[in-house]
């Protein structure tokens, strides 16, 4: 399920529209993930406050979306482009890769709430494919 030229163009066009709100998207997606899939909270026991709007959640939402933005710019070769991020997740963070799918789902939910007219079925499938490819690239170094 690799990204076609059309997918890449759609993702880039959508990113151009939404990147201005990247921090808000990251924060909202992370808040939803922690609320709707509480098992994900196990990775953040070092945070004092996991509630929506808290400083660590905001900061981390920003971090995540910076990574997504980087992936958009490296969309032609995600595996090599995200090698160091993959090493981070594989060796230091050791996040179970199923959680990438969960966070991706919540990013899409947030896009649907914030950009309903831009989140067409075509944009939806392109973003879903992109986030899957991103997740796969992140899992590259796991084993």
């Amino acid at each position, binding site marked *: 399920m690799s990204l076609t030229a059309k997918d890449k163009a759609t993702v880039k066009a959508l990113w151009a529209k939404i990147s201005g709100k990247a921090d808000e998207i990251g924060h909202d997606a992370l808040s*939803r993930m922690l609320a709707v899939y*509480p098992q994900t*909270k*196990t990775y953040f026991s070092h945070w004092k406050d996991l509630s*929506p709007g808290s400083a660590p959640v905001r900061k981390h939402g920003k971090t995540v979306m910076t990574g997504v933005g980087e992936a958009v710019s490296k969309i032609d070769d995600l595996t090599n482009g995200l090698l160091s991020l993959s090493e981070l997740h594989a060796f230091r963070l050791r996040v179970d890769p199923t959680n990438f799918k969960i966070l991706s789902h919540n990013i899409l*939910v947030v896009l*649907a709430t914030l950009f309903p007219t831009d989140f067409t*079925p075509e944009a*939806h499938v392109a973003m*879903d494919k992109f986030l899957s490819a991103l997740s796969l690239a992140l899992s590259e170094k796991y084993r």
Partner: protein
Amino acid sequence: MNSVYRSTAAFSSGLNRSARYTWAATNQSYLNICPAVKPQDTMVQWTADERAAIQGVFATLDYESVGRESLARCLVVYPWTQRYFGGFGNLYNAEAIMANPKVAAHGTVVLQGLEKALKNMDDIKNTYTTLSELHSEKLLVDPGNFQLLADCLTMVIAKRMRTEFTPDIQAAWQKFLSVVISALRRQYH
């Protein structure tokens, strides 16, 4: 490990949800030898807030419009799901799928089926026995697809409710969908 999350997600109570997940995550090997914690034996508990949230979401739904868009998105975003709709005619591209009258009609049927669960929230398991048999024995639908359609439905609701679809409401809605999916999966042998 993650199928454990999904089954405990369906039957976790309003209290101690986090504790249950954390316990399950760290004690996965014990779950098989600890029959008292078997998710299938636990009745689903709904808090008053959860019931209100789920009913609130349903109150916003125009079954025809939401049903059509959800099923259409499923067929576009996960094209392999088209395998179940050979008789639906033109599914060649997104426009055709969105405009297809059979897709629209079937979308409404799906939402009406969900309404049955809403009206019997305390016994979705038994309410869905016939539907589960239908999907497993007659329609032969891979149950993995239920999650795909559920996700598309969530997107469509998020699109329409926008920021009113808060994380808490999303959590209650996700729990409802998990219970529905679990009930639909029950009669697969």
